[in-house]
């Protein structure tokens, strides 16, 4: 049987084709939503990818409603606070998991994995009851707490992988150079773990930002409703009005912070920051 050896040119063509297919597949829905958000109410169902009548009225509408602006503030606040706390806790936990030997280490890692695997839907009802009893229902902490809980395992796993990459000897060297354990962590280990911290911050932020299940179940008013939940409450000004345009505009608006967040932190994720520490 003759073995066909593709020429480099043909192989490159093939890969370009595959990449284009993947990108189109992933971005087409995004483009479609963006296109819908720019269409007027009359042309929203015309099926054209490029709007015939461009309008910004959908965007104007959502920002004019208090409902959306309020939800946006909730989303940003809750996601940022949850991310900050989760990453701070995970950094310390991951350091311990990666570097220290302590009783119950395996149990801790096991339990955190268990939490990550637990189906969240099964916890919604108990959480709903608990939060109502404790007065956390429909408050920021009511969402921040479960977000931290469910994003910690992911953050711990990501970060401990980064900590393991940092040569042990750097810390010993810092100690020999006269650093206290806290100084060694702050001036040597933490700067080197920064790419890991930013990576897990992005992951946690996206998780909190995109969550719909907890947001819809544990909130009941504008006091804490986040954008994904608020979107589902969008209606037209009358029951005969179709809110497709405004929902699309809102969807585009909430995608922007994620893109910005990733772009902003990606520059800090400098690959190979630790190279040159040891012989290499």
């Amino acid at each position, binding site marked *: 049987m003759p073995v066909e050896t593709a020429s480099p040119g043909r192989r490159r063509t093939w890969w370009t084709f595959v990449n284009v297919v993947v990108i189109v597949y992933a971005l087409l829905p995004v483009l479609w939503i963006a296109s819908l958000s720019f269409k007027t109410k009359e042309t929203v169902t015309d099926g054209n990818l490029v709007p015939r009548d461009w309008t910004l009225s959908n965007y104007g509408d959502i920002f004019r409603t208090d409902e959306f602006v309020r939800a946006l503030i909730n989303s940003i606040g809750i996601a940022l606070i949850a991310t900050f706390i989760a990453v701070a806790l995970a950094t310390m936990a991951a350091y311990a998991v990666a570097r220290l030997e302590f009783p119950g280490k395996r149990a801790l890692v096991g339990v955190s994995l268990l939490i990550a695997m637990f189906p969240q839907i099964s916890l919604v009802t108990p959480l709903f009851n608990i939060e109502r009893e404790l007065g956390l229902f429909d408050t920021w902490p009511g969402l921040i707490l479960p977000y931290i809980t469910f994003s910690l395992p992911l953050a711990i796993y990501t970060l401990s992988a980064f900590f393991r990459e940092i040569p042990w000897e750097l810390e010993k*060297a810092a100690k020999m150079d006269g650093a206290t354990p806290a100084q060694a962590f702050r*001036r040597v280990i933490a700067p*080197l773990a920064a790419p890991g911290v930013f990576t897990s911050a992005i992951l946690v932020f996206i998780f909190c930002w995109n969550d719909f299940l907890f947001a819809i179940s544990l909130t009941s008013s504008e006091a804490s409703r986040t954008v994904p939940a608020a979107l589902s409450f969008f209606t037209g000004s009358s029951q005969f009005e179709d809110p497709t345009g405004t929902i699309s505009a809102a969807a585009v608006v909430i995608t922007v912070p994620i893109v910005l967040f990733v772009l902003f932190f990606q520059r800090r994720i400098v690959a190979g920051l*630790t*190279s*040159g*520490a040891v012989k290499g």
Partner: protein
Amino acid sequence: MAEIVLDKVSKRYPDGALAVSDIDLTVGDGEFVILVGPSGCGKSTTLNMVAGLEDITTGELRIDGERMNERAPKDRDIAMVFQSYALYPHMSVRENMAFPLRLAKAPHEEVRRRVEEAARVLDLTEHLDRRPANLSGGQRQRVAMGRAIVREPKAFLMDEPLSNLDAKLRGQMRTSLSRLQKQLGTTTVYVTHDQTEAMTLGDRIVVLQAGHVQQIGSPQHLYDRPSNLFVAGFIGSPSMNFLTAVVEDGHLRTPLGEVPLTDRVRRHLEAADAPRELIVGLRPEHFEDAALVEEHVREEGRTFTATVDVLESLGSEKYAHFALETEGVRARQLQDLADVTGSADLATGGTAQLVTRLSATSGARENAELTVWFDPDRLVLFDPDSGTNLTYEG
């Protein structure tokens, strides 16, 4: 400047493994002491205990007379150079070297002055603003040295600092390291597994094996009077030849012929209540091509004739290997040595091997007979069971 005293220091890990057992060692002020031994012998553990990176299980560590066991590494005023150099990758060379001074809250002007002084000594001035990732291995090694010397600490600890360099650079760095240490006069404890490094650098050498000190002494002392088979086999390159020998009627019967026992050796053997079967050790450099030995000198020594198995010519000298038609030696210590150095030929129990160093002018040829001369006074006798040297005391 400091005197470091290890007083019956032991290290036992929580799993019960004994890494270091009862080390007694006094490193004098300004002295350069080498801890040498095969990997896993406890030398790095010992160094880490002095540094404070590992706890001391029992015994006491004193620096300048003060007990150090419970002090944190940062309070011991010791600098350490790591095998991997452990440079901080996110800092420039200047920041790396300044780090210990910054932690000690030295004034800015002094930090700058001392870093630049160290950089000048180590020839790093033009690299001060580069990152470690952009330096060569030798430069990184020097930065690691620089970080240690800027602080002017009481002592340097070095954990195989040259083992990541290539052979040529290692030789150069060895010389400059030795010069630097003499210049600074700082007490230094240096760990290596390389006996050449140990011999060339140290004022004194501590040979360790399986957590036990085998012998402490100057390089020449260890070479001339190894206290046991392990030290004898470990120090010197190529290593000492070991052959079985039997004492009979005041003579020593060896595979190289009969050798009379001198009175001194006989007294030692009697005092030690030595067994009749012994191990005899002879360094390769104590042989010579009989044809090149002057008549009257030849009379004083012994000769033997055998077929050269392999001949290695190094230009300045020749190594003739012989496969003797006798059994090789079996001794526990030699087995240990063979295990750790991976040189199975030391104690295979097969036929005995003999390496001899001859002058470059020797006419020896492979697979031809050669008569080799040796001085029986240079023979060293060992107890096969305990491995103790029976020829010298201490």
